[in-house]
Structure formats: structure tokens, C-alpha cells
């Protein structure tokens, strides 16, 4: 029976991986991901999880080991953060291109320099083009549920893609809070063991994976990956619906909050959406028609769905916890702007960069962002359409 328990978000993801009965974990510890893999190694050492825990010398090796294990048909889990994900970068593309259903937790952390162990989304965003399904969680319950769902999505024959579950370093990873935890029987019903594909690596029928891709095939291979990602939306929806029907918690690409009659909405991913909700409440008390759109799925990007959801909005204030230096703003902001370019009716789109390197985003700062975004409607535009919200000058 499902049970309400207190758990650290990091441990919620370890528990989900255990309940998913993973066969192989290969990981290298790095703050703020450490608690996830510590717990998993404890499960294996205590005999609670019958899995191969591979100690590796780097994250590059961790992902390499995951790739090998997944290619033979194992259910594979890993976790990393920040510099660790950066070191994995090369192998992330190999995992996706070889269509390996690896599930990875990313405890989002800033990239050096300066040496910063704290949270923002610049690690995953630096690898956003790796071909993985990328989901962002707000809290322990989402982290737990998304991990279980991720295996089912990844291993679906129509998908066969790796999935990254992102959640903010410290602000989410290190918080103890309540979740409804499923038990082994419930998880078994939802998530049967991985079906080993006929083409899986095996000594009895050797195959070559990822050989040279000459110019005459590379385009088609990349296009296939694009199609696989696009099509995975259907399966993600199906799996989330099935999960909801079984356990009562339904998920969608977005979680709107007080959006019905809203004219302005904050759009954001991750844990700070919780704080943004309080800012929305405060502004509503003042009579402002403000709402929030929490974006859960970054890849594949839910394009049509976002257009539909925002059709009545006048202003979209997008808060990014990452940006591209010298570029046109944060990753969600630039994505959404590109999405709306060809739309006849579109909201004013204003970008904010905040919460870098673990800086808190306070309720009043969200309120400032909304106020500033509103001014864009009156013609007071921001140069290039985006700004840093929290720079001390």
C-alpha cells in the first residue's frame, strides 16, 4: 500500500530507482547529487537491491558503463550534477544516438568557475542538445513519480531514449518533505521488468554499434533521433495518464496555477515554481491578474501545447536559471520566443535570468519580475528582451 513518509528528495529518487528494480548503477559522487548514489550503494550493500553497483573513476566512465549495460538489456540508473554532467557530455550523445533507455537524475548545479556547488540549471542546459528526454521536477513527490515513469517511457519500444530527471541542487535535493511512496507490489504492476530487445548486445550474436557514420547516413540518423524525441510526447502522455489512473497523481507537460483569467504569467521550470506560486497569490491579493505556468518537459519541447495554454495571455515573464553568454537570453526564453515568432497572436515575452549559483529567488523578486514584465506591455521594453534579475550594482 502507498504510504505517506518523510524523505529527503535525493533519497526519494534512490527509493524510486530501487523500486524500479534497476540492474546496474554506475555513478561517481558529486555534490549535490551525492546522497542519491550513497543511498543506492547502501541498498546494494545491504542486499535490499539486487543490482550491480559499478564504482567508476569519472562521470565519463559512469556514462560509458551505463551505455554498455543498457546495450545488453539491463535496466540502468545513474545520477550526476554540474561538472560531472559536463564531463559526461560526450557520452550523453552516444547514449541517445544508440537509443539506450538509461534513466539519470541530474541534481542541477552551476558550472565552474568559480567553484560553486550550488544550484542552477546551467549544467543540463549546456547539454540540452544531447538527444535525451529532459524533465524538470519541483519537489520530492515529482522526483519520485517521474523516476518510476521515466523507466517506462524510456523503455517503450516507440521511444527507446534516455531520460534525464532534473531537480535543483540543494533547494530540492536536500529538503526533507512528505511524499506518498508506492510499495514494491504497486510499482511492479505499473513497471514490469525491461523487455530485452532482440538486437541487444550478446556474445552469441555479436553486433556493431555506433560505427563510422558517413555523410550519406548521418543526416538520416540525426533526423531519426529528432523524430523519436518528437514522437515520445505521445508515450509520455500515455504513461503519465496510466500512472494517474493507477495512483491518482496525474501529470501534464505543464502545471498551470491561477491561469484561468490571467493576463500575465510567470513561466519557469523546477523547484522555485513553488516560491513563484506564493508571489502569484500575493499579486492576486492586490488584484493583479497573474498566474504561473510550471514547465515540466523541456525536451521534447511541448510547443503546440504551450501556444494553446497561453492564448489568452498578454505577457509571459520567463525566468531561467541558466543562460548562454553572448546569446539571446535564457534557454526557455529563447525557445519560447522562437516558438511564437510565426504566431499571429502572441504575448509579450520578457526574459529574466535568476537563481544562478544557488542564489535564492525570493517571493518579492518574482513580484519585481512581474512588475517589470508588465511595463513591456506599455512599450517600456528591455534591451534584447531579457535581463538579469538579481545583479548587485
Amino acid at each position: 500500500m502507498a504510504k505517506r513518509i518523510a524523505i529527503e528528495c535525493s533519497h526519494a529518487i534512490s527509493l524510486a530507482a530501487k523500486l524500479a528494480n534497476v540492474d546496474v548503477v554506475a555513478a561517481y559522487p558529486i555534490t549535490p547529487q551525492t546522497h542519491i548514489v550513497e543511498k543506492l550503494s547502501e541498498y546494494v550493500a545491504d542486499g535490499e537491491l539486487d543490482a550491480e553497483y559499478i564504482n567508476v573513476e569519472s562521470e565519463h566512465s559512469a556514462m560509458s558503463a551505463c551505455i554498455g549495460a543498457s546495450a545488453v538489456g539491463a535496466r540502468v540508473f545513474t545520477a550526476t550534477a554540474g561538472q560531472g554532467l559536463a564531463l559526461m557530455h560526450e557520452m550523453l550523445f552516444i547514449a541517445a544516438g544508440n537509443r539506450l533507455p538509461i534513466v539519470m537524475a541530474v541534481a542541477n548545479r552551476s558550472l565552474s568557475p568559480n567553484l560553486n556547488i550550488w544550484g542552477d540549471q546551467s549544467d543540463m542546459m549546456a547539454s540540452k542538445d544531447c538527444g535525451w528526454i529532459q524533465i524538470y521536477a519541483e519537489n520530492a513527490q515529482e522526483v519520485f513519480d517521474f523516476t518510476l515513469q521515466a523507466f517506462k517511457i524510456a523503455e517503450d519500444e516507440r521511444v527507446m531514449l534516455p531520460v534525464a530527471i532534473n531537480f535543483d541542487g540543494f533547494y530540492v535535493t536536500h529538503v526533507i518533505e512528505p511524499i506518498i511512496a508506492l510499495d514494491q507490489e504497486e510499482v511492479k504492476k505499473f513497471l514490469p521488468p525491461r523487455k530485452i530487445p532482440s538486437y541487444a548486445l550478446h556474445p552469441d550474436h555479436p553486433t556493431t554499434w555506433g560505427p563510422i557514420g558517413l555523410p550519406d547516413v548521418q543526416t538520416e540518423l540525426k533526423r531519426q533521433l529528432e523524430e523519436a524525441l518528437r514522437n515520445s510526447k505521445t508515450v509520455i502522455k500515455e504513461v503519465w495518464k496510466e500512472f494517474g489512473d493507477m495512483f491518482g497523481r496525474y501529470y501534464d507537460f505543464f502545471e498551470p496555477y491561477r491561469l484561468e483569467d490571467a493576463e500575465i504569467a510567470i513561466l519557469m521550470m523546477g523547484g522555485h515554481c513553488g516560491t513563484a506560486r506564493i508571489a502569484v497569490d500575493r499579486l492576486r491579493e492586490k488584484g493583479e491578474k497573474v498566474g504561473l505556468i510550471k514547465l515540466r518537459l523541456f525536451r521534447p519541447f511541448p510547443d503546440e501545447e504551450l501556444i494553446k495554454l497561453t492564448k489568452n495571455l498578454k505577457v509571459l515573464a520567463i525566468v531561467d536559471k541558466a543562460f548562454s553568454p553572448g546569446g539571446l537570453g535564457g534557454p526557455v526564453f529563447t525557445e519560447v520566443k522562437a516558438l511564437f515568432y510565426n504566431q499571429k497572436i502572441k504575448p509579450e515575452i520578457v526574459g529574466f535570468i535568476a537563481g544562478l549559483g544557488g542564489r535564492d529567488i525570493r517571493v518579492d523578486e518574482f513580484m519585481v519580475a512581474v512588475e517589470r514584465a508588465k511595463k513591456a506591455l506599455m512599450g517600456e521594453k528591455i534591451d534584447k528582451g531579457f535581463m538579469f534579475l538579481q545583479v548587485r550594482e
Partner: protein
Amino acid sequence: MIEVRWHGRGGQGAVTAAEILAHAAINEGKYAQAFPSFGPERRGAPVLAFNRFDEKPIWTRSDVYEPDVVVVLDPTLLKTINVVEGLKPNGILILNTSKKPEEVKEKYGFKSNFAIVNATRIALDIIGVPIVNTSMLGAFVKATKILKLDSVLEVVKERFKGKIGERNINAVTRAYHETTIVG
């Protein structure tokens, strides 16, 4: 919502204390958060830990800026840190001290309500080491009445097994009884 800030030194168990309270509150059916101060902690250095308690789901991920309760594990922190910073006017400060209420008032000039307990004495007597976090849990329960003593003891029992568990339970209970609430 009730927000709590714990002041301790690395190794005194402030983070563990906050964790125990969150577990106890959630076991009571409440909503709660516990989180550390997100830094590279070192033994002996000042550390922070936080709690939130509510009857409804807690959304905020923000730091605690205006606590309702401040708990100080180590009285020497008062020399260098303004522990009452941001404390709400009707909030309460819970202090580990060997001083009497009048002395505390005179020495530190606290305007807020406060509660005191000689947690170092209790920890030395019962546990044998000056690790005061569990004693301060007893003081917290007495001074705030947010949680039941039994639900805190239950989690302490789960967390520390055997003799250590017994000693910590005795420390919580004795501190609960010996805590004086002032103002």
C-alpha cells in the same frame, strides 16, 4: 506556517535535529520541510538548519528570512552572530545556556520571548558528550507546542538505536521538563 532557524556549530547536530522534527511533524500528518544551510560545513564552524511546519502543503523553496522560532545550540555563537535577526516580533528564541533568565535578559537584552535550558549540562550528564541537539529538541517541543513530545521521541528512537537511543530519549525528556519559558 511556522518557520524555524537553527544555529549550531558543525558537529553539534543542528541539521539532524531539524530532520528529526520534520519526520515527527510528517508522522503527525502535518506538512513540514527540513533543510541545511547549503554550505561546505566544517566541524566547529557556525552552521544553520531550517524547518517549516504547516497544516497545508508547503510550496516555498526560499530561504527562511523571518523565522517564528530561533534555536541556538551553542551559546558562544551569541558573541559573533545576531541570532535574532529577522525573528518575528511575537517569535521565540530558544537558547542553550547555563545562565538564569534575568542574566540572559541583562546580558543580551533580548526583546523577544525566549526559552532557556542548560542543554550542555543535560547532554554531558546523560549522553557523556556535549552534543546538545536532542536536548534542544525537548526544549523546542516545550517552548513551541507545535509537535507532540511522543512523536519526537518516536523518531529519536528510530534514528538512534540501542543505548545511544535510550540516552538521547532521556536527554529529550529531561530537557523538556527543565526548559524555562520567559516573557
